[in-house]
């Protein structure tokens, strides 16, 4: 029993890029709507009703993006009204609405993605792509708290020596920049020592092994196979043109054939996978607790 965020990071990444990839590269309004609703649903399933500010930001952005297109682009047949001698058309407004739905949907997905992919998981995924880059990333991540701790130490030492006061702005800035300068020198020297220590322990003599918390289990393989299969169906139906929609010069809807419907259904299924997993886990948890 694992929640979606506890699956192998590679699986989670593949799933996220399938969902957002389809949302970004298709322009079929129904798919955009599904992606936006799914994104909002997934975000609220994970976070409850908190994060009010982010929701407000996203929806203000939605409004701005919708209105931006008809003000700039004047394509389209149906003129709603004329502003500053420029026609504002229905088609351009709907096009803006469609783009806004896509962008805000993808933003919601990436907000959840950033929450799920902690730096540890990122290192695992980049380690699969390039061990050396992942090592640099992990060292940089480790340096940030180290530097902030060291800067507190330097700051205290400088103050104790009576070198600056922080109630005088000019003195404060001068003192702070001296602390920063000392910190940089220390950081570079410390980096050299780290590098020498790494080499002394045999870094670079053969392939690097690393501690790894994540393994591929049966359910991981099942999830990755299912998401890739659903992605292929949707991508095929988008790519072959059975989910086409054109806004200009006038809106023309082609009723989607069997393949189009299959694409839409598989996209819904793809988006529902983690939501189903989360609900199933929480239901089972409640059931187990009620049995005690």
């Amino acid at each position, binding site marked *: 029993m694992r929640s979606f965020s506890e699956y192998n990071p590679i699986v989670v990444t593949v799933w996220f890029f399938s969902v*957002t990839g389809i949302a*970004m*590269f298709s*322009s079929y309004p129904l798919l955009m709507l599904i992606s936006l609703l799914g994104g909002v649903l997934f975000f609220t399933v994970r976070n409850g009703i908190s994060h009010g500010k982010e929701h407000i930001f996203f929806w203000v952005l939605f409004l701005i*993006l919708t209105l*931006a*297109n008809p003000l*700039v*682009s004047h394509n389209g047949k149906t003129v709603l009204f004329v502003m500053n001698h420029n026609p504002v058309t229905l088609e351009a407004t709907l096009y803006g609405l469609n*783009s806004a739905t896509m*962008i805000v949907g*993808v*933003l919601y997905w*990436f*907000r959840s*993605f*950033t929450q799920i*992919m902690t*730096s540890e998981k*990122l290192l695992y995924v980049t*380690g*699969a*792509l*390039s*061990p*050396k*880059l992942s*090592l*640099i*990333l992990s*060292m*940089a*991540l480790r*340096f*940030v708290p180290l*530097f*902030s701790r060291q800067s507190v130490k330097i700051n205290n030492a400088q103050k104790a020596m009576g070198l600056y006061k922080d109630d005088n702005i000019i003195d404060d800035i001068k003192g702070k*920049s001296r602390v920063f*300068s000392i910190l*940089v*020198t220390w*950081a*570079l*020297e*410390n*980096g*050299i020592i*780290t*590098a*020498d220590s*790494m*080499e002394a322990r045999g*870094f*670079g003599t053969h*392939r690097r092994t690393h501690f790894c918390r994540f393994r591929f289990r049966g359910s991981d393989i099942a999830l990755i196979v299912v998401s890739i299969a659903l992605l292929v169906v949707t991508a095929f139906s988008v790519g072959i043109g059975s989910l086409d929609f054109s806004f200009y010069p006038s809106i023309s809807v082609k009723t989607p054939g069997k393949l189009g419907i299959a694409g839409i259904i598989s996209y819904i299924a793809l988006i529902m996978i983690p939501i189903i997993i989360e609900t199933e886990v929480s239901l089972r948890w409640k059931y187990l607790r009620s049995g005690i």
Partner: protein
Amino acid sequence: MLLIRNKELRKVIKITVPFVIIPLVTILGALVFNEKKHIIISLAVALLSLLLFAAGFEKKSTGTRRMVMVAVMTALCFAGRFIPFFKPVAALTIITALYLGGEAGFLVGALSAVLSNFYFGQGPWTAFQMLAWGLIGFCAGILSKKLLKSNVILLLYGALTGVVYSFIMDIWTVLWYNQSFNMNLYIAALVSAVPYTVSYVVSNVLFLCLLAKPFGEKLERIKTKYGI
């Protein structure tokens, strides 16, 4: 571990990506998608070039010391992005490139984009940000002799990269919004981004002014002391 462990495979990637796949993607993209979906092509090219760089870097034997220096500079960039309004990332990338070479500059720019976006929001723009900052560093590395000679040229380069960064990111904004390139939208995006462009230019010039010399001395000292 998974992708680029195999030496042969690395070699294949290194040869095919720049000479075969990237041009193929561009041409096929233009033909198949009827010039409508520039976004797919641009994202694919950005990702492929990052992959190419990773493959090249993986193959080379970079010294451990140099690698740790890159990590130190990346951490400083990452911390610097928390300063409100003025961001020293591009300036620090340029300084790194001047003293440690273009490759180190590319790495610092690209990696600090990925890392800091964990706090500032990851998104499809990350690939473009990585490429933009990385290229700013890489070009600084190529031009390092001229930039080191005169302070004025260095500050001009800083100001120019601030503008170029904004222009690149706005191309991406338009492509994402509209799926194909639209000049009106691009101009609108550029105009609405003017405050940001100004802040990029000001912070690049400001931080290059403040940091170029002291950082240069420190890096130079480390280089002569330890022979990197």
